[in-house]
C-alpha cells in the first residue's frame, strides 16, 4: 500500500500547477519550481542551452539584483540550488518555514522576467565551459556519454545535459532569450511546496504572486522516436591507467509505462545491496569487479537501463559482457524465488519512504510526477511495485533486454 500523501492542488488560470503539502515535523519548508525545460527541449545543435539557462536564472532580476537570491537565502538560514536534467529544470529552496513566502516571491519574479544581459551571459558561458571540462576529465561521465550516443541515434536523450563544448561556444544571447520566452512560462511549470505551512495560505500567496504572469506559447516538442535497434553496438574508450570499466545499455520504457514498476524491481534484484544477483556474481569473493550497479532513470520518454561495472585490472571485458547477459537470461528463464522477489519489493518500499524523510524529497516528488501527468502517478507507481510478480519480471526481460538491442561501452587503460 503506497503512503504517498495527498497534497492540495490548484491550477491557476495561466496554467501554473500549484501543489502544497503540510508536514509539521520540523519548522522547515521546501519549494520546488519545475519547468519542462530540459535538454529534451533544446533545438538541434544547441546542446547545453537548457543548462546554461538554469545558470542564468541566478543572475538576478529587477527585484533581486545579481547575487541577492543567494545572499538572501543565506541570511534567512536556508539553501537553494537548481538542477537540469533531460526532462526539466528544477529550482529549489529549503528554509526555516517562517520564511515560506520568500522563495515564492523570488520564483514569481524570475518567471515574470529574467533580464538576461550580454555580459552576464558571456561570464556564465565561461563557467558552463569549465563545468563541461570537468565532465570531460571524468572517465565515468565520458563512458556514460559514449554509451548514450551509441544506443540512441536520434533521440535527444543522446546528448549530455551539460552540453557539448562546441555547442556551448556557439550559443548566442538570442538562443537563450528565445528558450527562456518559450519555456519559462507558467503553463510549462509546476510549483510544489512541502513543510510546516498552512496550505490555504500558500495557495492564496501563489495565486497573488503568479496570477499576473502571462502564459506563453509553448514551443512544440519535436517528436523524435528512436529507431528500433536490431544489432549490438560497441565502442571502446582508452584513458589513463584507471581500471577497466564497462557499461551495457538497454532500451527501456518511460516512467509512466505499464512495465515501469517491473523494470524498477528488476533493477533492484540485479543491483541493490550485497545479496543482489550482479553483486553476487561479479563482486563477492574473488569476483572480477570491485563495483557494479543496475540503474534505470525515471524519464518522460523511453530511455536506457544501464548495467555498469568497474573491473579489477586485467579482467576480461568480453567475458564480463557475456556473463552479464547470462545473468539477464537466467532472470527470464528461471523462476524467481518468492523470497528474492519479496526482498526486492521491501527494499523498494523502504527506499520510497526514506525519500520522503525530507520536505525537499516530498516537494520534488510531487513536482516531478505532476509534470508526467499528475502527482497521483507516484501512488500508482508504488502500488504497482507491490504487485509485480516473478513472471512480470521475466516478461520485461524478454521484451526489453534482447541481447541484440544492447549497446556496450568499454573503458580501458591506454596501454592495453
Amino acid at each position: 500500500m503506497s503512503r504517498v500523501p495527498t497534497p492540495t492542488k490548484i491550477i491557476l488560470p495561466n496554467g501554473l500547477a500549484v501543489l502544497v503539502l503540510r508536514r509539521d515535523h520540523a519548522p522547515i519548508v521546501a519549494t520546488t519550481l519545475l519547468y519542462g525545460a530540459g535538454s529534451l527541449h533544446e533545438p538541434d545543435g544547441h546542446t547545453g542551452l537548457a543548462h546554461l539557462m538554469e545558470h542564468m536564472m541566478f543572475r538576478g532580476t529587477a527585484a533581486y539584483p545579481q547575487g541577492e537570491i543567494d545572499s538572501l537565502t543565506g541570511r534567512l538560514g536556508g539553501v537553494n540550488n537548481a538542477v537540469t536534467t533531460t526532462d526539466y529544470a528544477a529550482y529549489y529552496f529549503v528554509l526555516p518555514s517562517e520564511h515560506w513566502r520568500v522563495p515564492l516571491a523570488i520564483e514569481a519574479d524570475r518567471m515574470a522576467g529574467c533580464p538576461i544581459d550580454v555580459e552576464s551571459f558571456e561570464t556564465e558561458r565561461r563557467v558552463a565551459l569549465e563545468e563541461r571540462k570537468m565532465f570531460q576529465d571524468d572517465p565515468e561521465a565520458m563512458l556514460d556519454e559514449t554509451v548514450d550516443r551509441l544506443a540512441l541515434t536520434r533521440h535527444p536523450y543522446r546528448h549530455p545535459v551539460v552540453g557539448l563544448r562546441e555547442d556551448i561556444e556557439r550559443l548566442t544571447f538570442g538562443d537563450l532569450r528565445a528558450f527562456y520566452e518559450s519555456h519559462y512560462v507558467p503553463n510549462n511549470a509546476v510549483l510544489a511546496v512541502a513543510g510546516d505551512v498552512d496550505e490555504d495560505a500558500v495557495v492564496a500567496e501563489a495565486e497573488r504572486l503568479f496570477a499576473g504572469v502571462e502564459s506563453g506559447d509553448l514551443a512544440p516538442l519535436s517528436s523524435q522516436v528512436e529507431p528500433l535497434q536490431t544489432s549490438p553496438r560497441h565502442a571502446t574508450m582508452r584513458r589513463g591507467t584507471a581500471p577497466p570499466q564497462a557499461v551495457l545499455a538497454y532500451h527501456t520504457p518511460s516512467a509512466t509505462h505499464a512495465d515501469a514498476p517491473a523494470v524498477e524491481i528488476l533493477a533492484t534484484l540485479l543491483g541493490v545491496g550485497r545479496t543482489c544477483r550482479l553483486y553476487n556474481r561479479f563482486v563477492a569473493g574473488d569476483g572480477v569487479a570491485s563495483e557494479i550497479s543496475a540503474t534505470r532513470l525515471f524519464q518522460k520518454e523511453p530511455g536506457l537501463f544501464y548495467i555498469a561495472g568497474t573491473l579489477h585490472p586485467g579482467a576480461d571485458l568480453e567475458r564480463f559482457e557475456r556473463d552479464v547477459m547470462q545473468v539477464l537470461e537466467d532472470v527470464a528463464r528461471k523462476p524467481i524465488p518468492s523470497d528474492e522477489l519479496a526482498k526486492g519489493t521491501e527494499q523498494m518500499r523502504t527506499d520510497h519512504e526514506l525519500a520522503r524523510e525530507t520536505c525537499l524529497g516530498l516537494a520534488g516528488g510531487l513536482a516531478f510526477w505532476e509534470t508526467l501527468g499528475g502527482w497521483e502517478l507516484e501512488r500508482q507507481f508504488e502500488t504497482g511495485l507491490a504487485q509485480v510478480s516473478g513472471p512480470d519480471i521475466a516478461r520485461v526481460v524478454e521484451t526489453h533486454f534482447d541481447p541484440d538491442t544492447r549497446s556496450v561501452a568499454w573503458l580501458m587503460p591506454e596501454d592495453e
Partner: protein
Amino acid sequence: MADARGRVERVALPNGAVVLAVADSTVPTFAATLTVEAGSRYDPVGRSGLASLASSLLVEGEGAGEVAFRFEPLGASVDVATGYETTTLGAVGLGEHCEEAVGLLAEMIGFRSPAASIIRDARRRQLTEIAEEDGEPSFVCRREFFRLVFGGHPRGLPVEGDAVSLGRISRGDVSEFMDARWSPAGAVIAVSGDVETSRIVDAACRAVEGWTVSDAATSLVTPPPPRPFTGRRFVEMEREQAHVSLGGIGIARSDPLYHAAAVMDVILGDSAGFGSRLATRVREEEGLAYIIESDTAGTAGIDPGLFWAYTATSPEHVDRAVAGIVDEMRKMCSEPPSNHELESAVAYLSGRHALDRETNDARAAALVRMERYGLGLDHADRYASLVRAVTREDVLAVARRVIDPENYSIVAVGPAGTGLFL
C-alpha cells in the same frame, strides 16, 4: 506507535559504550549507527589503509558479511565508513525493523579472526578502488594536499592506504587491529527514527553489554598532534582542467575559535549558493571556475584539520584564479568582516543547522558528534547562541591563526605547462 520527535535518551554502559536514541514518527523509518574509535588515525606506521581494510570485512565475505546479508530481506541496508577518527556501521530501514537491525550491528562488530582469503579479496577490491581514484584529478589533488600539509603524520595519509602499505598488511595485523580498536571503550550506538526510545535503548544495551575491552585496547598509543609543513607540489595529469588546493593546518574541534572558523568559512568560501567572497570573485565576476570553495570547520576533529581553498579551472586561468584566492585570503586576515557579513553568516549557520538534521541518518550522525566531542545533549538547542556569540574580532583572529597568505602550501594537478608551475 512511536513517540513524536522527542528528547534524547542516553545510557552509558560499564564497558564504556554509550547508547543514544531519539524518536521521530514523521515517517516510518529509522537510522542506526555503531561507531568505534577505529579510524586511520590508529593505523600503525607503514600500514596505512589497515583501518579501512579491516572495516571492509564487516560487510563482505564470511562472518560479519553474512550477518550484513540479513538486513536485506527486511528492506534495510547497512554500510560501513572509515575516516580519520572512526569506523561507523550504519543501517537505515523501516522503523518496525530497528530493534533487529541494532542487534545485527552489534553482532557484526563482534566479528574477529577473518580468513586469509577474505582479507585477500578485500585488499584486491581496495587496490582497484585506489587505482580508480588515481585517475580522478580532484581526488589526487586532495590526497596530495593532505600529504603536503601533514607530512608523514597519519592525518596526511590516505585512509584507504596505498599499494605498498596494503601489501604489507598481514592477517595478524588485521586481527590485532580488530582486537584493539573495535572496542566498547568510546563506542557510540545512536538511533533516530520511528521507534520507542526506551525499548530501542534496552535492546541496544542488551546487544552490547557483553562486549568487553580487550587487553590490546589498553596498550594502544594515539599519535602526537600533527605539525604543519609548507610546500608546493605539482602532479602532472593530462586533463582539460587543473585542480588546485592551497592553505595550511587548521584547528581542532575543541578550539575555542571553532564557531568563529565556521563563520569565516561562510564568508570566505562556503556560503549558500555562490555568495561567498571567493565564489563572487572567481566564479560570478570573472567566470574562471565552476567550483570554488574553502573550508576550515569541516575537517576540524580530535586533531587539527586544514584551512584550504580549492578550485578547478582551465590551465591558462590557474594563475589568475590563485591570485584571486590569495588576495581574498589576504583581505580576510587584514580586517574583520563587516557587520552585515557577520550577521548573514550567523543567520545562515543557525538556520542550516536545523535543516541539516532533517533525516534520521543526519540526526544519528549528530548524536554521535555530540557524544564524541563532548558537546552535550542540548547542543542542538544551544547552537544558535554559540554562533551568535562570535564577534568580528573572533573571525579576524581565527583567520590570522589559520590563513597565511604569504606562506601557504599549494598543490596543483593538471596538464604539463599549468601556468603557475612552469
